[in-house]
């Protein structure tokens, strides 16, 4: 497939149909990142010239006129492009996310944008990894540095093998000792 074929397919209704089967953001994000077309595009975008083509296309899609009674028909494609840019160049992705966040009637693309913006804010504060980012985000909210964190970042830590996270295990061990 040529780059043009890949991008046209990502912008097609069929691709949107496949990834819109996700009930929530985590599944959507996983569905996109495991999609062969997305992987192909993200690989090609390691080449700066392809990255520029994708950014130009993202900009065109964001400015494309839409029927306001409907969701933006490029929503899933813009979300996929943003995620691919984030994978190869998070700084550039933060700029693109800022622009996409103003695009009307988006669903997934606006959620991807807000997550990219959040992770860019955390990077500026020197917080590198996702778990750390989550706890730093909580502290930022508590300290009044930001109004509110994206919902996904405030999710409770996942339990591991039904035993709870290391905090839970420590607490339980403390209770047993007492």
């Amino acid at each position, binding site marked *: 497939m040529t780059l043009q074929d890949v991008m046209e397919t990502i912008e097609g209704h069929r691709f949107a149909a496949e990834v819109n089967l996700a009930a929530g953001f985590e599944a*959507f994000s*996983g569905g996109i990142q495991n999609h062969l077309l997305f992987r192909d595009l993200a690989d090609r975008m390691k080449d700066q010239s392809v990255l520029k083509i994708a950014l130009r296309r993202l900009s065109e899609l964001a400015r494309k006129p839409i029927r306001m009674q409907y969701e*933006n*028909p490029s929503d899933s494609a813009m979300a996929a492009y943003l995620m691919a840019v984030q994978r190869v160049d998070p700084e550039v992705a933060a700029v693109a996310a800022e622009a996409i966040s103003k695009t009307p009637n988006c669903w997934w693309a606006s959620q991807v944008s807000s997550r990219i913006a959040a992770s860019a804010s955390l990077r500026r504060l020197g917080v590198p990894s996702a778990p750390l980012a989550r706890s730093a985000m909580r502290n930022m909210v508590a300290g009044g540095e930001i109004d509110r964190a994206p*919902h996904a970042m405030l999710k409770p830590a996942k339990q591991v093998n039904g035993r709870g996270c290391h905090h839970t295990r420590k607490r339980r061990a403390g209770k047993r000792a007492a």
Partner: protein
Amino acid sequence: MPELLDLGSPRDRNAIYLATSRNRRIPNARRPERVPEALVAAMQFVTESHPSARLRSLTGTYNCIGMAFANRRTCIEPDHVRMILEDDGHAEVSPKHVVSGDLLVYRDREGAISHVAVVISHEPDVANGRWNTTVISQWGYDGEYLHDHADVNQLLGRPDRFYSERKHT
């Protein structure tokens, strides 16, 4: 001070007031309707890949959880299902006690809740030693289908446990 969008928060203009029986707020957001061409493509994709799925309604404004808990009015992230089940008094039901109207919760590979369906029929298949369960659910944002409980797209996860809020005197 950066302001970050929290989809479904009380500040979200697309959210509706929605709470559990214990009056805990359920974060939600109404999604704009998808263009008709996209919905038709979605229906074709679902019915081609899952022949047991029969379309009930073709809209993308709510998800499976909004269908089950908010009368098809809005979208609710799967992370909130546990709170809703607890607050609304849903208890796990063994397969032999399931009746129409009970809920079936699906989980992904990591064990997180990924989908919710409402049981339409639940009959023993004696010859094959299993239950024939038909459910109704919104497939992501791609329309509402009647389908065999195990016949779903991988993004929706796998059927896990039945729950019911039924009361007995």
